[in-house]
């Protein structure tokens, strides 16, 4: 894998040195971040259309917060401070499964249940984080909370490649089943879709892609990149095809612009914040288009 990354980096660096790409792309860490953006953007954009259509925006927000607790647990258990992935993945996936299990079995209102889980994960995560800050440099936690391009390493990219590959494969193969089971579970079941099984696969998919993106976008904002591009695309789309295409485009452009623009303008802005601000601008623009069309 390293050879492929090197080839990609050298190509980009040569283009930047020859003035064909922005000067900031002469730096390896920026290219790493760009690679991550090109992986995260389209994937979160496409999966986001399902999250929005299945009305699971609040759910993905809870998963994002659960990532905080996962990071803290990983550091407490002695995992590398810059990449506590075992605890991060394990906790987020278990959290997603438990939340979905409770949602299916309790009969409680989804919003109430997710609200409780969201608050609880934030409370546990922030409490553990406080104990962790005594042991490590607090700025490392900032990277996880709000995203950082400096810390994206080759191993982070490899992890993203695997997570994105898995998400694309599962998402493409089961897109119709995921959506239909959200629209009408009885109809989906008649169509041979094991609804409960696909519910679990979908929440695990969200947990996986959320956690894999935490390093770049940040735990606090990662769910926003799942939701905002899809919400913006929804404002201007007249079919499922345009919905997915616009969502992927907005998400990718937001991720790339959010990483490169602060570098070009020499602004001290966290990556996650910049990405989400760009995505929000797209949302506002599409909202205006929608309002004009409705008049």
């Amino acid at each position, binding site marked *: 894998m390293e050879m492929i990354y090197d080839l990609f980096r050298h190509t980009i660096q040569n283009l930047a040195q020859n003035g064909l790409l922005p000067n900031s792309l002469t730096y390896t860490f920026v290219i790493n971040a760009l690679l991550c953006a090109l992986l995260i953007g389209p994937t979160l954009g496409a999966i986001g259309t399902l999250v929005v259509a299945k009305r699971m925006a609040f759910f993905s927000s809870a998963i994002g917060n659960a990532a905080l607790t996962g990071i803290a647990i990983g550091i407490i258990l002695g995992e590398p401070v810059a990449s506590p992935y075992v605890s991060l993945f394990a906790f987020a996936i278990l959290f997603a499964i438990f939340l979905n299990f409770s949602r299916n079995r309790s009969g409680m209102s989804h919003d109430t249940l997710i609200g409780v889980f969201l608050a609880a994960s934030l409370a546990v995560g922030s409490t553990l984080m406080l104990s962790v800050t005594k042991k490590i440099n607090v700025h490392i936690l900032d990277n996880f909370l709000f995203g950082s391009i400096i810390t994206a390493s080759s191993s982070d990219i490899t992890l993203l490649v695997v997570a994105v590959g898995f998400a694309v494969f599962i998402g493409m193969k089961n897109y*119709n089943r995921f959506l*239909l089971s959200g629209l009408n579970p009885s109809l989906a079941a008649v*169509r041979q879709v094991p609804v409960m099984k696909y519910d679990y696969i979908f929440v695990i998919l969200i947990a996986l892609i959320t956690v894999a993106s935490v390093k770049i976008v940040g735990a606090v904002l990662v769910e926003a990149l799942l939701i905002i591009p899809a919400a913006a695309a929804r404002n201007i789309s*007249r079919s499922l095809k*345009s919905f997915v295409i616009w969502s992927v485009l907005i998400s990718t452009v937001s991720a790339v612009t959010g990483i490169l623009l602060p570098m070009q303008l020499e602004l001290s802005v966290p990556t996650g914040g910049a990405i989400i601000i760009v995505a929000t601008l797209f949302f506002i623009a599409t909202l205006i288009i929608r309002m004009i069309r409705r008049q």
Partner: protein
Amino acid sequence: MNNPTRGPIVTCSNLSMNFGKNRVLDGIDFIANPGELHCIIGPNGGGKSTFIKAILGQMHHDGKIVLDWPSAPGKIGYVPQNIEVDKTVPLTVENFIALCVQDQPAFFGVSKKIKTEIDRILARVNMQSKKKLLFSELSGGERQRVLFAQALIPSPDLLILDEPMNSIDRTGAAIFSELIGELKAQGVTVIWVHHDLAQVREMADQVTCINREIIFHGVPSEVMDEKHLLEIFTAQPVREAL
């Protein structure tokens, strides 16, 4: 008739079901035969939809439900009461049908393999000219026609309709009746939860009235007399319907 025994014999024996401590179905015995339109009627909250979900294998229950197919298990078509589509999700009629009937992601468009079939069925329910419209732009009756259309792809051997005519217009009702008549003639088993008593009398071969338990069942012209119906419905709608 192409094949008079295409559908299964659907048999329920002593079917009972509880929601917590509430008994919603109690000792239901039921049989529906191939080539037969069997209507289920009864008051709201009487357990009709629950009964349908039990037949579809989606509810835990006591008692026995058997689908006795003439050969290998065939296709089941299901028309739900309604479908909750977020008004802002850009799902067209064609997208929705594709979502139901193909493996290829619906955002890639309709698969070439079944495009002709989808167009044919949409034409049958008078919705072909509206296939590019969003689901949110359809009237209640048009939505029902789309829901009915998806149940016909692939051609079902057992068709189950869960009160789909709540909001359908006169034209839609005529289309439903015509298509169900054709399916019956092909030997399909049709079970239809229906609230239009006049139409049940006109179309059904058998009728079963459920209000937690079986109130009556048999041939509509024999069992749907005013006395029976007044036992379960209020007088005003029955007189109007009859």
